[in-house]
């Protein structure tokens, strides 16, 4: 029984081993409704592995996963789609669930790619494809969103807008989000709880706690902890797709 009904997924001391090498070991964390948990860590620190354990993609794991929802949206870090498949954005949006047209349009508009609806998936740029992946994951209005580097390849202003969107989604849908980023600095504002990984949980807490943590500093260098101020300023305008400048 799920006594605390706000918990969506809970990892209890999980670990995963491949070819006799531990990819992650002894990780515990939980994602609750309306909260954003961010996994950070250097390359190869087991962020994606942890996400896949939470999603149930890896089966032979140490420890256990308690999952309290089946409505999951996933943006994987790497996705290789075989172009022997003729697939338009529109077809991709209904890949795992049949959702209504207006829901598809709404999600594509939110991530700014509604104009690509009938384009072939193979013809998109990296950033455009990333926005489609995010739109697909949010369009089904999931309880749990797992976003593995969701803004890779997206331009800088787009990156900020998408993180703001992610924050908004977590607030409006009241869904829990497990977010993976290699960079604490870009996700600072959006996140409630940060877990810093390096094969194991190296430190965790609020973003500011983690940024001040000594283990975090040794892992990412002194520069990393100087980011605290960076994110405080606001943009007073944004650029639309046609290149016009819109004042906020």
């Amino acid at each position, binding site marked *: 029984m799920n006594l605390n009904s706000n918990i969506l997924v809970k990892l209890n001391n999980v670990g995963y081993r491949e070819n006799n090498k531990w990819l992650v070991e002894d990780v515990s964390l939980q994602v609750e409704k309306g909260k954003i948990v961010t996994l950070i860590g250097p390359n190869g620190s087991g962020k994606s592995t942890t996400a896949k354990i939470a999603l149930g993609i890896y089966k032979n794991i140490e420890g256990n996963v308690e999952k309290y929802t089946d409505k999951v949206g996933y943006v994987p870090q790497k996705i290789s789609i075989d172009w022997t498949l003729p697939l338009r954005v529109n077809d991709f949006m209904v*890949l795992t669930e049949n959702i209504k047209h207006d829901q598809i349009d709404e999600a594509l508009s939110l991530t700014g790619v509604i104009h690509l609806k009938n384009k072939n998936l193979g013809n998109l740029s990296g950033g455009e494809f990333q926005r489609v992946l995010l739109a697909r994951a949010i369009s089904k209005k999931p309880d749990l969103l797992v976003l593995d580097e969701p803004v890779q390849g997206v331009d800088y202003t787009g990156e900020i807008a998408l993180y703001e969107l992610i924050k908004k989604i977590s607030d409006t849908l009241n869904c829990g989000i497990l977010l993976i980023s290699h960079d604490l600095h870009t996700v600072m504002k959006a996140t409630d709880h940060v877990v810093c990984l390096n094969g194991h949980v190296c430190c965790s807490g609020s973003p500011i706690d983690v940024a001040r943590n000594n283990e975090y500093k040794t892992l990412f260098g002194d520069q990393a902890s100087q980011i605290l101020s960076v994110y405080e300023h606001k943009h007073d305008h944004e650029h639309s797709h046609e290149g016009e400048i819109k004042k906020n």
Partner: protein
Amino acid sequence: MFDDFFIRALIAGIGVALVTGPLGCFVIWRRLSYFGDTLSHSALLGITIAYSFELNIALSVFVISSLIALILIQLQKKTNLPGDALLGLLAHSSLAVGLVVIGFLTFIRFDIMGLLFGDILAVTTNDIFIIWGGGAAILIVLKLIWKPLFASTVNYELAEAEGLNPDRAKVIFTILMSAVIAISIKMVGLLLITGMLIIPAAMARNISDSPQKMVLFSVIGGILSVVLGLFSSLEFNSSSGPSIIAASLFLFILSLIKIKQSIQLKN
């Protein structure tokens, strides 16, 4: 106008094309051409067993091909051999065992050419029932597993993460492949069944921009191939299987013209 056997062959052939169309698309998308070959080679073993124990051929082929397919899935998990080596191993060993068994069955006269290349004269009313009944069952099951099968074809981890159970869909699809081989073996012959799965679907890929369109064109292409093939088989007294496959090749070549045009448009 036409002889009864020809009408029967047409009805049976169209039934086969309705099923091989959608399944053929998955064979192409999931890169299963050699898997299809392996299953159809193993069908010879199924046929000889059917003769030995006086069983229904389609049923016997279905059971043996499914068994071979499940053995393959197990071998893939348990050994370190590459997939194509395992496919070759199973294809040729089951073919060899089938031929050895034929050697023992000296009391039965086999129409080897008919088995290998199909024989429209051999299609009975009973076969039509098997093709249409079995075909309808295959299409219904395919419709039921379409979502997980298609999603995992696009990306396995997405399907698994979002709770679609792709492993189960894969096993069911494997059994559907055995079933389609079992019902089409009399029409097309065991050497050319994979051609019937792949060539109309390949033609359809050239002229489609969405999965649904590809399935539709693949079915239409298959039906056209059957009709063209059977008429030419009647006209030139050629085996039905090769005639149908040659007709589908002709359609594939036509579809290349469309590709050439769209490449020119892009430039």
